[in-house]
């Protein structure tokens, strides 16, 4: 049996942020701020989405010299389709929730 994506409210929140600007590469810390998820929750979800081929990750050199390279993330085409199909109906609700929190 193949792996299926794991649905959780945390995954929904992350997908809701990632499909706002699907072409933009996002850093982990920025995703944490936008989703309101703690790093201990965020990274396992990122790992899972990446394992399932829904998220692509790559290394980028730091903006400032002397700083280490950073991992950036965005949805793959499959991830984008998945997010649109599965998450879009809930997106408005989650967006409102995040807006209310901010």
């Amino acid at each position, binding site marked *: 049996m193949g792996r299926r994506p794991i649905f959780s409210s945390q995954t929904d929140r992350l997908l809701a942020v990632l499909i706002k600007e699907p072409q933009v590469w996002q850093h982990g810390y920025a995703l944490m701020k936008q989703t309101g998820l703690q*790093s201990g929750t965020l*990274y396992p979800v990122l790992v899972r989405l990446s394992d399932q081929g829904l998220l692509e990750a790559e290394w980028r050199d730091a903006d400032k010299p002397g700083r280490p390279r950073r991992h950036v993330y965005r949805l793959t085409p499959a991830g984008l389709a998945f997010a649109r199909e599965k998450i879009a109906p809930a997106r408005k609700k989650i967006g409102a929730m995040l807006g209310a929190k901010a």
Partner: protein
Amino acid sequence: MTQTLCRRMAKALMRHAARVMPAREKNWGEAMQNELQVIEDDQVALNWAVGCVIAGYGERMNTLLQTWYARAALALLIGMLALREFFAPLLIFAYRTQELGLAHFLGLRTAGDDYRRLIPLMDATPAWLPLLWVAAGLLFLVALWRMLRRMDGSVVLFFLAFALDLAGAVAAKSIEASTSVIATPNLMVRAAGEVLMLSTGFVLWRMTRKSGLS
């Protein structure tokens, strides 16, 4: 706590988090660690690092749970829980059908080492109660089989069996009260059984959650 100490603790925790990440996810450990450099606020950095340590151990545990020996150990535990459910029905059956050799053999494995101590309890046990335990045992076995075959539903079946076991324990307690015979007088042994069951269910849930099953 000074900010410097906060930052130093965050860095130490991050190094630890990166170390505990499983080998195949080392780049994720590095990714988490490198983000720390852009977090200006020391308290936020410390919170970030604590979260990363939790994530690191979570990933480590998930990886461990996917190994064959973890699955074998869990299978053994679930099998033992199933056998435990069949014990009392088998003893009652042996006693009621006058298979006293078997009843004696099983009685040696009870508190007091003698089935005859339990005769008032077995006489007072309604027929549906052993059936409830057998159903719980069968559900454990089906959960075990589905887990080994990596099929859906093992966790639900496991906790359904656990619920039946609990219901049986509540019913048995009232029978014990009415007959003044306690099957397992040691409360610690009773509690250990339930804790073992819950812990096994939790590990099963973690194991199947990792692979996307439920």
